């Protein structure tokens, strides 16, 4: 089994559903569909907007749902549907970037720690555990207070917060693999650490690591939305879904759709990812 074939089959299978002996159940497919449609929305948002994002188009503020404004209008009378579609870019984009950085660094560090062992392992584990014992929302608050909020700062902060978790997960898996005979054989053969990590360990943990990436993506979406809701995330005039809820919180006493729909957008994304992960084919999830 080589690394390239296994990872490409995983990938193409996630898209095509039931080929190559993997079976998705219906709940998994629903989850996947919702995720893919939000991804498409994030990429093609400017092409499908019914109204320009920043423009005040409704005379009423906190307007109800109507044929012209499907999701109502916000506190200035801007079209809510357009703002949510555009918000997908920030929520999905920032979270995806952050989770990629977090999982890549965490998994690489975890595998290195497992293979190298010794003092490197001890120091890394101690340090990352310490980082882990700062509550995530608090960490975000402190960093934003110190350096101000911008999209690169957000991406880096979010990824730093979730590196320890990814590291712990990958290290635990890699330590198990590291104890197996074929690793010992490879070591005796004189292979380098890089080779061990890339060709022996990674192919054996890639399934669970991908599932873990999905769960971490949910955490990051929730944290980003939380920070934006506190006014510390994406800054106006741009708005992700959390910031949309914050902007329109004044409409809450009237039950305005402008407060409800951004929340529903977040929920649809996070619940779908959870459903997909829970219903992943056993073959992908339990590869290790």
């Amino acid at each position, binding site marked *: 089994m080589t690394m390239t074939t296994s990872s490409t089959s995983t990938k193409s299978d996630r898209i095509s559903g039931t080929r190559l002996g993997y079976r998705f159940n219906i709940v998994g497919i629903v989850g996947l569909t919702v995720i893919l449609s939000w991804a498409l929305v994030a990429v093609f948002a400017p092409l499908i907007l019914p109204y320009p994002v920043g423009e005040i188009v409704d005379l009423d503020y906190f307007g109800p749902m109507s044929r012209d404004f499907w999701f109502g209008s916000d506190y200035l009378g801007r079209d809510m549907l357009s703002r949510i579609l555009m918000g997908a870019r920030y929520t999905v984009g920032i979270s995806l970037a952050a989770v990629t950085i977090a999982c890549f660094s965490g998994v690489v560090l975890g595998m290195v720690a497992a293979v190298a062992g010794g003092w490197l392992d001890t120091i890394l584990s101690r340090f990352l555990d310490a*980082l882990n014992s700062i509550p995530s*929302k608090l960490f975000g608050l402190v960093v934003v207070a110190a350096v101000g909020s911008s999209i690169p700062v957000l991406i880096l902060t979010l990824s730093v917060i979730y590196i320890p978790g990814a590291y712990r997960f990958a290290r635990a898996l890699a330590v198990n693999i590291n104890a197996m005979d074929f690793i010992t054989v490879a070591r005796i053969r004189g292979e380098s650490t890089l080779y061990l990590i890339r060709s022996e360990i990674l192919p054996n943990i890639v399934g669970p690591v991908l599932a873990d990436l999905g769960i971490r993506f949910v955490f990051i979406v929730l944290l980003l939305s*939380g920070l934006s809701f*506190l006014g510390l995330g994406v800054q106006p005039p741009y708005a992700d879904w959390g910031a949309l809820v914050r902007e329109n919180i004044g409409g809450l006493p009237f039950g305005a759709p402008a407060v409800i729909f951004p929340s529903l957008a977040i929920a649809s994304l*996070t619940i779908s990812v959870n459903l997909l992960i829970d219903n992943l084919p056993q073959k992908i999830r339990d590869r290790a």
Partner: protein
Amino acid sequence: MNNRVLSLVLSRLLIALITLMIVSFAVFFATTLLPGDTATILLGQAATPEAVEGLRKAMHLDEPALFRFFRWVVGLLQGDLGTSYANEMPVADLIAGRFVNTLKLAGVTALFSVPIALTLGITAAMLRGSLYDRAVTVLTIGVISVPEFMIATSAVLIFAVYLKWLPALSFANEVTSLTDLLRIYAMPVITLTFVISAQMIRMTRAAVIETLNTPYVEMALLKGASRPRMVFRHALPNALGPIVNAVALSLSYLLGGVIIVETIFNYPGIAKLMVDAVATRDLPLIQSCAMIFCLGYLLLITTADIIAILSNPRLR
């Protein structure tokens, strides 16, 4: 054998202490990364070079960062939390009352959520696979995969907008009667209870199911013990350690939830104070609040670990 438990607990405490040091280091340096000179910002219009120089000296800003860090830590240990930039009041005075408010909120939440979550978690595990179990599981996954502010806004929509039972905002300083108290605490407590319980139910359910799968529970079933007897006499005592561990861990989620809940309901607690301090960039206040939060979090997860060690009969 008892020595082993003692040494494990002591090493866990030592780790917590080292962690606390690393955390305080991180908090201090994260907040001093702020670009711009604090003295100049504080003086504003009155920032003549002499005044800036004097203030820098008075605030020890002319010393190396490492010195200032040690000065800050020693101050913390002596109970001197510094002076707020925004209103020149001692941080300790600002925090004291707010801290009590937050503890009250957390305490009331724990009082409600722990029994509810344990009951739901244990019964769901007992009736595993049933419709009830699936309903509980779906509900907990739903709550976990949704941001806290959405639970809070939903609570406002349901209880204040549609049912009109409760006010949307809460102020904890004008309590005259019991009904007032109920109305004020209801919304924040409902929200936090949902957030905390979901985690607790999941972990409790998993812990109980794990013990139900052990051979000795199967043995109890085979020798003809009734289902409740099997669960309460054979499984539960052994699952107690993991359950208490789960409770302590879930309570640490209070910290994240409390930040959102206090903001959305205008509850005068320490988290609201901190979010406001971030808006005004009041660094001494942010540092102190952050340290209190980290300390609370560390306390809870260390307690959880120590309980896990103590409850392991193999170490006794």
